[in-house]
């Protein structure tokens, strides 16, 4: 009786807890960990991004449904020179929250500031594809020819200026003898902020040049690192500029209150260029990490939506089928690396067999908030990307491949006792969820191949270095979150033997396929080329794909314009509170027309 009086929290409700909308147009949202900073070039995580999407705008913004780029401060752009030159046209009439106009020079300032070594932004690498951005951030130098005074150039087809480390000891350690000889005695010129390939052609036109073809650059520019920061406030207040009273912002909302570990409140910014389309008057972000507490607040109707990965697994039986629960794919790949440099996994047939022996559908059912992964590019995230067939579950074929690889008895059948199981080990980092997966995979191999592969955990940082040096035995845990929403973010892992590539697998033909794909100007043809490269990669099987995580979050039915999307990035200007229950599940709601400008 009391329960039903409190807004349909009864057992038969299709929603979890109360569904009474708050008064007026205000949203109460749980945004995750306490934000590191309100400076978009310092606060590096998703919890911060959620706030920055209210306070700051970039040249582009994330689409509320698909997370691909939509116009924001830039109303349009052109791409030339095989995806290496981009010209962005700024909206006239865009203003900072203090009323001053937003100009092309502000974007140039933003990029140069973000890359300045003194700022020490953790996200600076997001812009490394921009011409000489990495060189400037690393304190590197160009080399002049002593005779002609011209800059020496590198050996890539684009003939960019040659870049060498700025410090003598780094040059001695990193450059090969031939290059050291080439630059010996030549004057070095430190890379300056002005050398970065971002220029203001006039107050409303920005040209960006890149180191290599970067067809996904407009998508990259939605990232918090590229959201415009106010030169006027930063030069006046220094590190203290984000404080209330000092802060100046570029987004649809402006800061009203900040109380650490309690709340950040933003209100509609009346001078925002699209203020007429913004419907929320106020958003309250609650930083919170305790899952039960936030689910309690949600159930009691004290908050209207929560961020992703928040529903405790033990609650899913109750909540999983409700209408306000969402669980779509994310841009994340969870997989195991195969060591292709030593041990039995040097043989591609062994790698394939270990992969064929895993039932990923069963794994997804076991983990509950994941979706099976068949390649390296997560499915359901890139709608028109033609995924290659990818890995399948076929234990019989797995045993046949192992027999073919030499692990067989007199009759030619696979014989588990001939396999050197001591040379194989599944190494993972200490974490409950990672361990559960490892044990599941171990049991699959036991059941389908008759092999008991030992599993071993180590601290995360240790695993990173063990993996980079390929000092693990055969199999190591890996995972990758897309830095930007493009399949290239995943395929690029195999562009070098170093860096993030944990397998040691490297094939110049594969790298060339990627380079050719990125020169392609037609988006769909580019996807087809990337998919062919992925198929080629999967045929060599340097990884064992496992799963993609899914979003696993909740939102009250009266919150409209907020969708399940692969980056879980919600542009708040499209969000509204719908007080009329009859329109809660309308197939098209008023928000959708604002999405395409």
């Amino acid at each position, binding site marked *: 009786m009391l329960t039903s009086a409190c807004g349909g929290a009864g057992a038969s409700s299709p929603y979890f807890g109360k569904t009474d909308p708050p008064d007026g147009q205000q949203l109460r949202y749980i945004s995750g*960990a306490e934000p590191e*900073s309100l400076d978009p070039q310092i606060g590096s995580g998703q919890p911060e991004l959620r706030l920055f999407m209210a306070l700051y705008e970039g040249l582009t913004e994330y689409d509320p449904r698909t997370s691909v780029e939509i116009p924001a401060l830039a109303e349009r752009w052109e791409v030339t020179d095989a995806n290496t030159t981009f010209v962005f046209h700024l909206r006239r009439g865009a203003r900072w929250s203090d009323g001053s106009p937003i100009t092309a020079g502000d974007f140039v300032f933003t990029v140069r500031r973000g890359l300045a070594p003194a700022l*020490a932004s953790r996200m600076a690498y997001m812009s490394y594809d921009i011409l000489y951005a990495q060189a400037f951030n690393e304190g590197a130098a160009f080399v002049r020819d002593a005779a002609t005074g011209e800059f020496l150039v590198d050996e890539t087809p684009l003939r960019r200026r040659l870049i060498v480390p700025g410090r003598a000891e780094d040059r001695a350690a990193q450059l090969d003898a031939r290059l050291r000889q080439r630059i010996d005695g030549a004057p070095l010129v430190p890379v300056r902020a002005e050398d970065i390939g971002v220029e203001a052609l006039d107050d409303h036109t920005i040209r960006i040049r890149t180191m290599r073809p970067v067809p996904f650059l407009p998508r990259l520019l939605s990232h918090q690192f590229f959201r415009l920061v106010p030169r006027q406030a930063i030069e006046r207040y220094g590190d203290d500029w984000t404080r209330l009273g000092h802060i100046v912002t570029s987004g649809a909302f402006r800061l009203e209150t900040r109380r650490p570990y309690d709340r950040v409140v933003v209100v509609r910014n009346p001078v925002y260029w699209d203020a007429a389309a913004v419907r929320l008057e106020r958003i309250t972000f609650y930083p919170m990490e305790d899952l*039960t507490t936030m689910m*309690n607040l949600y159930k*009691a109707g004290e908050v209207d939506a929560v961020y992703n990965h928040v529903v405790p697994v033990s609650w899913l039986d109750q909540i999983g089928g409700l209408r306000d629960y969402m669980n779509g794919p994310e841009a994340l790949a969870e997989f195991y690396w195969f060591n292709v440099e030593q041990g039995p996994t040097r043989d591609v047939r062994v790698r394939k067999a270990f992969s064929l022996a895993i039932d990923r559908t069963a794994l997804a059912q076991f983990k509950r908030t994941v979706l099976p992964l068949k390649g390296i590019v997560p499915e359901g995230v890139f709608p028109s990307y033609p995924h290659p067939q990818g890995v399948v579950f076929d234990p019989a074929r797995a045993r046949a491949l192992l027999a073919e690889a030499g692990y067989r008895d007199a009759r030619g059948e696979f014989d588990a006792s001939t396999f050197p199981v001591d040379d194989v080990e599944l190494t993972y980092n200490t974490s409950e969820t990672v361990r559960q997966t490892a044990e599941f995979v171990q049991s699959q191999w036991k059941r389908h191949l008759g092999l008991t592969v030992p599993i071993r955990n180590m601290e995360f940082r240790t695993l990173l270095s063990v993996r980079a040096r390929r000092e693990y035995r055969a199999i190591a845990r890996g995972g990758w979150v897309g830095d930007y929403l493009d399949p290239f973010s995943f395929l690029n892992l195999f562009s070098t033997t170093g860096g993030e590539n944990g397998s040691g697998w490297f094939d110049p033909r594969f790298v060339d396929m990627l380079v050719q794909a990125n020169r392609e100007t037609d988006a769909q043809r580019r996807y087809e080329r990337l998919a062919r490269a992925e198929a080629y990669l999967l045929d060599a099987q340097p990884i064992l794909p496992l799963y993609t995580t899914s979003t696993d979050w909740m939102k009250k039915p009266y919150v409209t314009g907020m969708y399940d999307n692969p980056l879980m990035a919600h542009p708040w200007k499209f969000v509204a509170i719908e007080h009329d229950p009859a329109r809660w599940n309308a197939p098209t709601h008023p928000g959708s027309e604002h999405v395409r400008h």
Partner: protein
Amino acid sequence: MRRFILRRLFVTLPMVLAVVSITWGLIRLAPGNFYTGEKPLPPAIERNIREKYGLDRPWYVQYGRMLGSVVQGDFGVSLRYAGTSVNSILSSAVPVSAALGGLAYLLALLVGIPAGTFAAVRQNAAPDHLSMAIAMIGLSVPSFVLGPTLVLWLALTWFVLPPARWEGFGAHLVLPTVTLSAVYVAYIARLTRAGMLEVLRSNYIRTARAKGLPERRVLLGHAMRGGLLPVLSFSGPALAMLITGTVVVERIFALPGLGNYFINANLNRDEPLIIGIVAFTSITILVLNLAVDVAYGLLDPRVRY
């Protein structure tokens, strides 16, 4: 008395410095850094960060700077919450923890002392067994069980109280205060009972009764003064623990107090913030212990400094 207080205050600073030094060493032993995340950083970016925060300097330089900041009472800027000074974090979080802790302790005294006294007076009778049984439950049910249970009933089934969050003094504080005070109610009730039982058997109480004083005055005027000494000595450390943040309750109820900061500061390896909180906590404990010792001298005529 004054010499005693001065002497104690004089040793406070070296003790705090010793505590922060040990803490500083332990932080250095823990793996990882404030900037390490899921993805490894490019080496150049890591170098930029280390230069910006002086982590590339020799250890004794960093240690000296840390000690200097503690002595000056300015703990510097948080590494995790860039641009936010540790002092401003302390000044925003301490009032929350202190308010919650203070209220919880007040509640514990208001319930625990009468319950314990009552039990002592009616020793081995039904009221004694009942109140001590309840106290035993209060002691044995941890706050991470009691808190969610109260939330489940009062906030999510009957919807009479909010389930979490800080909204100043009001309905939002009821559940965390009750949850936090439960253990202390039980402890204080048991301490009061024990103290009162001992005092009630002593000679001066027999004398008071023999004088024909009414039982009320015997209890409140004479027995209480001695019987509450165990509660008093418990109060110093207990209040210090409560004021400096109560991790579990603050997390369950999402309160912006010091406990939340302390946990996350450790997870984030946020050295200035850890040092700041540890220094604040140790000063609080030392000062409250001193206050208890002083109060002891005032209450118990046998204690002389």
